[in-house]
């Protein structure tokens, strides 16, 4: 973490305030976590449009659905772990099935949740939302992309899940970047291997590409902020011009980005893959660096997967 890092949750709170000025029908529902998620910034700015729902996520999602039918656009403030599971049947019945315009922000997603441990870490939220018909699923890389994604979400009427991380991280999207739902962005071009990443793991994918370059391997990094609908063309094109694909995400390797990329490639361009992510397990409490190391999310883990894949590719093509 460097001095230039920006906290995604702060950006989310400020984003709500700014969008709240532009959209008078934006409302926020909170599950008693506003000072963690930073929805409290919206509460300060627009107390009349902020509804505290207490520690009752199931009711909160139902209330959001009702508000959506009266012309308001509700944003949900809670932790990804609770949103994606505690209120899942509510999301299914009154948000996804009727396709109501509710914006579900899962804060504290992934492994890095301030030493709260496996109860609060969310390693399967992307898989859960991606499997839900009608729900757009977004995992921005950094605070800048998050702000751009929020603006895009307000102009889109579909129910949407957006994944937010707690801690500060580097900004990786280029200057002037504009997020577009369903569009991947090539952050680095290289011919030997394609790394496909999402969320904050993209910064570690870029770090891995730096390490690979030192070792003489040129890697592309395709950042996929929208896991559903996924950018099939960009993923297939990457597979076409490289020797293998490594997916990387701060999420389970099952059902998330890795699963989605594997589905795309299996149907359109069968390609050897390695999936970096949480290996079908739950996490634990601990410092961020230790968690990334133990659960296999560091740039070095990506490098190892790339080397493994390249060795295999060179053997089989020989």
């Amino acid at each position, binding site marked *: 973490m460097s001095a230039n890092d920006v906290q995604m949750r702060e950006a989310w709170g400020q984003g709500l305030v700014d969008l709240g000025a532009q959209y008078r029908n934006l409302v926020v529902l909170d599950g008693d976590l506003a000072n963690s998620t930073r929805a409290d910034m919206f509460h300060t700015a627009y107390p009349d449009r902020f509804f505290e729902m207490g520690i009752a996520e199931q009711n909160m*999602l*139902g*209330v959001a659905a009702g508000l959506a039918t*009266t*012309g308001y656009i509700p944003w949900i403030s809670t932790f990804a772990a609770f949103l994606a599971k505690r209120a899942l049947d509510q999301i299914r019945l009154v948000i996804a099935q009727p396709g109501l315009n509710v914006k579900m922000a899962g804060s504290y997603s992934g492994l890095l949740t301030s030493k709260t441990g496996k109860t609060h870490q969310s390693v399967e939220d992307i898989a859960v939302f991606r499997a839900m018909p009608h729900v757009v699923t977004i995992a921005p890389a950094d605070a800048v992309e998050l702000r751009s994604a929020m603006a895009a979400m307000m102009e889109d009427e579909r129910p949407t899940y957006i994944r937010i991380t707690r801690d500060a991280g580097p900004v990786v999207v280029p200057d002037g970047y504009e997020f577009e739902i369903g569009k991947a962005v090539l952050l680095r071009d290289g011919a030997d291997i394609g790394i496909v990443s999402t969320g904050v793991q993209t910064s570690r994918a870029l770090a891995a590409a730096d390490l690979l370059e030192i070792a003489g391997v040129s890697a592309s990094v395709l950042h996929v902020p929208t896991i559903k609908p996924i950018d099939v063309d960009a993923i297939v094109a990457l597979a076409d011009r490289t020797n293998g694909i490594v997916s990387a995400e701060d999420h389970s390797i099952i059902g998330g980005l890795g699963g989605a990329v594997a589905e795309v490639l299996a149907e359109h361009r069968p390609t050897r893959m390695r999936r970096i992510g949480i290996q079908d397990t739950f996490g634990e409490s601990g410092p961020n660096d230790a968690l990334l190391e133990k659960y296999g999310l560091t740039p070095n883990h990506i490098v190892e997967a790339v080397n493994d894949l390249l060795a295999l590719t060179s053997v089989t093509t020989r």
Partner: protein
Amino acid sequence: MATASALQRESRSISELEGLSRQARRLILESVHKSGAGHIGGPLSVTDLLVSLYFAELRLDPNDPVNEHRDRIILSKGHSSIALYTVMALRGYLPVEELATFDQINSRLQGHPDLTALPGLDMSTGSLGQGLSAGIGMALGARLKGDDFHTWVILGDGEIQEGQVWEAAFVAARYKLANLTAIVDANGLPQFGWPDPSGHTRETPFDDPAAKFRAFGWNVIEVDGHDHAALLAAWAEAKAYTDGPTCVIAHTVKGKGVSFMEGNYLWHAQVPTQDDLDKAGLELADPEERS
């Protein structure tokens, strides 16, 4: 595009409401018979509540079913969908003949209410315990906009076993939502539940819901859910209370109107045969047709 002025509240007489209830019950039985699936006991217990609301209380316009100023109604006990569709058909939302498509493929009349299928349905329901929360959202939306529409949510007394109902009950009282009324169709019988010591019936699914809603800060009214005059008085009393939400506990009979179905939990979702229809038809005939 219709304007708010197209919205209107019907005000049928008590005898007209009773006639509509008999007609609705006959249609419900026929539809479930034709469909070969669906629920019976719950739709018959909730029929009078729906007839009363649609024909004497709700401000609406069947020709402009999504008018933003309309009163909202959510049948949270979505498995009684056929009763809702039937009353909506009688009110002019859909042709009565369309009831024959209930539960069929591509029908607007899905097994459980689907707001994307039939205009005029205010919320999708079916997984129990969720309607009251959506009703809170509508009531908050009305308050925020300064709109005076009222939101009504009908729950089952088995349904209120769901924990989410009590999350919602707490929050509705916290926000003092006087523009929200919950109605509990307290027919006293679950789908299976706990056997009564007699062995012939079931214990009530939820003891004294009135006391529980009161404890959560609600204004509570208890009423005979099959007495049209009493229901009209209950709606008026609910809306006159301005300090918070009101819950109307409507005491009803599961399978109401058909003697051999009344109070028999086995008729929760049994499909009536032609013979059953004939017998029930005699009991539900209008007085002038009886001889």
